[in-house]
């Protein structure tokens, strides 16, 4: 309590000091969490690199019961599903962002944005369930393949899960293009359509690249929906038709097998090893996305 008769400004200094120190600690905590996650993945995952020969570890066969820990089919499986998902989501996402930002009347925009947010909120297990029960049979019928639980079904679901990210980041990028660019295009006699595709979208290019990278990070790490609809067959997806066959991703492998392994077994270490690979992969993707965001921010505007 103050004895000088001044107002609250001269309250005991230490509460303030305490609170501000706490806030500082909390501010730095996120760095600590990232390090903590990495350390604990390494702690449990690093042993695999000593227990299993590298030739086995990056081989083509993942049969833990026979001591075969080839992660290649899983990595390729993740890559296949992710690339396909982005191939679907990129045109769809950019077109929707352009529509929402440049073309749609106000009421449509007000209707679309919450819908996209709803999509972002639907739990992945619900989408997986829906995909398993409705999308997979349609894929099977439509393509005449023996099972609908294929890489393609997974990619389709993943595309929709990546869409909210891609749309909102791409929209921000379009938003950051100065109005004067559009005015200049229109004043030169270009139609709005020409202005959008020849001026506005190219100007927002790097923001759109960021959008795609973030969407890719989201797709590669998605677990439940992928596990439920891709069929989980650990084979090398090398032939052309592997898109329409079951495939197994890194995330699904961890989720499906972790429950059944004994602690500190080779299999257990191997699953953590996959976790380390996933962590590093998403770290790099997000690092790339982040540096482009930071660079643009310094230049002013996300462009």
């Amino acid at each position, binding site marked *: 309590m103050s004895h000088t008769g001044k*107002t609250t400004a001269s309250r005991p200094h230490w509460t303030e000091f305490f609170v501000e120190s706490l806030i500082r600690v909390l501010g730095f905590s996120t*760095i600590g969490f990232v390090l903590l996650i990495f350390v604990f993945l390494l702690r449990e995952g690093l042993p695999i690199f000593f227990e299993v020969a590298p030739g086995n570890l990056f081989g083509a066969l993942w049969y833990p019961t026979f001591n075969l820990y080839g992660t290649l089919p899983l990595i390729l499986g993740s890559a296949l599903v992710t690339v396909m998902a982005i191939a679907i989501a990129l045109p769809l996402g950019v077109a929707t962002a352009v529509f929402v930002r440049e073309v749609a009347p106000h009421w449509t925009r007000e209707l679309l944005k919450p819908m996209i947010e709803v999509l972002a909120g639907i739990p992945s297990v*619900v989408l997986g369930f829906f995909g398993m029960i409705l999308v997979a049979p349609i894929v099977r019928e439509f393509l005449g393949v023996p099972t609908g639980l294929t890489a393609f079904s997974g990619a389709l679901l993943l595309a929709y899960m990546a869409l909210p990210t891609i749309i909102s980041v791409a929209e921000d990028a379009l938003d950051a293009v100065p109005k004067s660019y559009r005015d200049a295009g229109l004043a030169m006699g270009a139609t709005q359509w020409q202005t959008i595709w020849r001026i506005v979208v190219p100007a927002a290019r790097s923001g759109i690249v960021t959008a795609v990278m973030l969407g890719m990070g989201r797709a590669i*790490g998605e*677990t439940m929906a992928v596990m439920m609809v891709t069929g989980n067959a650990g084979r090398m997806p090398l032939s052309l038709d592997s898109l329409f066959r079951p495939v197994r991703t890194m995330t699904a492998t961890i989720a499906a097998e972790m429950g059944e392994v004994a602690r500190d077994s080779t299999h257990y270490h191997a699953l953590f090893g996959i976790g380390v690979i996933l962590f590093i992969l998403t770290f790099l993707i997000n690092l790339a996305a982040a540096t482009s*965001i930071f660079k643009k921010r310094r230049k002013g505007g996300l462009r």
Partner: protein
Amino acid sequence: MNRFVVQRLGFALLSLTALAVVVPILLVIAVIVARGGGAISWEFLTAMPHGGMKEGGIFPAIVGTLVLTLGTALAAIPVGVGGAIYLAEYARDNWLTRSIRLAIINLAGIPSVVYGLFGLGLFVLFLQFGTSLLAGALTLAIMTLPIIISTAEEALRAVPTEFRTIIASLGGTRWQGIRRVVLPQAFPGIITGIILGLLRAAGETAPILFTVAAFFLPRLPHSPFDQTMALPYHLYVISTQVPGMPFSIQYGTALVLLVLVLSMNVLATITRSYFRRRRQW
């Protein structure tokens, strides 16, 4: 072809792609509501699972998810809001702040199943919490941090600098300004961020797979060290692990989870629009 015709066709195509994005979303919701609605009854919601889970009863899963979300909130809110206050009010533009931002972006990008591994490694095994509510809630809390921090920071930054300057000119300290003026002004925005983060936590399956979720446990948790059933994991279990499960039970469970998450979504939208309307600057 006339370029105005091209434009018309192009715009039509764009609205079609927007439809291609929106229609499946509506379809998912419509199908789950239509087919799951019939399964919903007072008994389905409030009974313990029985008949090998095939006759419904999802009460422990509902309670489990609610308790888990509450636990996540308790752990994530102080850290998330504190972190946001630091970034919005205290941080200078230096390498340390940039590393924090990088850490947040990376936390947001870590796959959910990797969070599960981390929770297993740190909370369940190393700290010996066992497969428990505590381990699950802490894992989910770290996962929701980036959402809460970035939304709350945005809300804090939206409060004009003049407010802080005025407090300072009246002899207030920085913390007084934050506590008395900035935080109350940013409050609805912060709440929006918290709801968005918790909504994500409530619907996640992968992080709770190895940290808390029980396959079948027909009783309610009594302590933070208990396991519990949870809605997302239960939906996974009954749609992939139990043969001969009636569709109605699966759809019903999906519907309950969807309603829970979507109502949080609506709540977030309401607080945000309230925030925008109430804004006095």
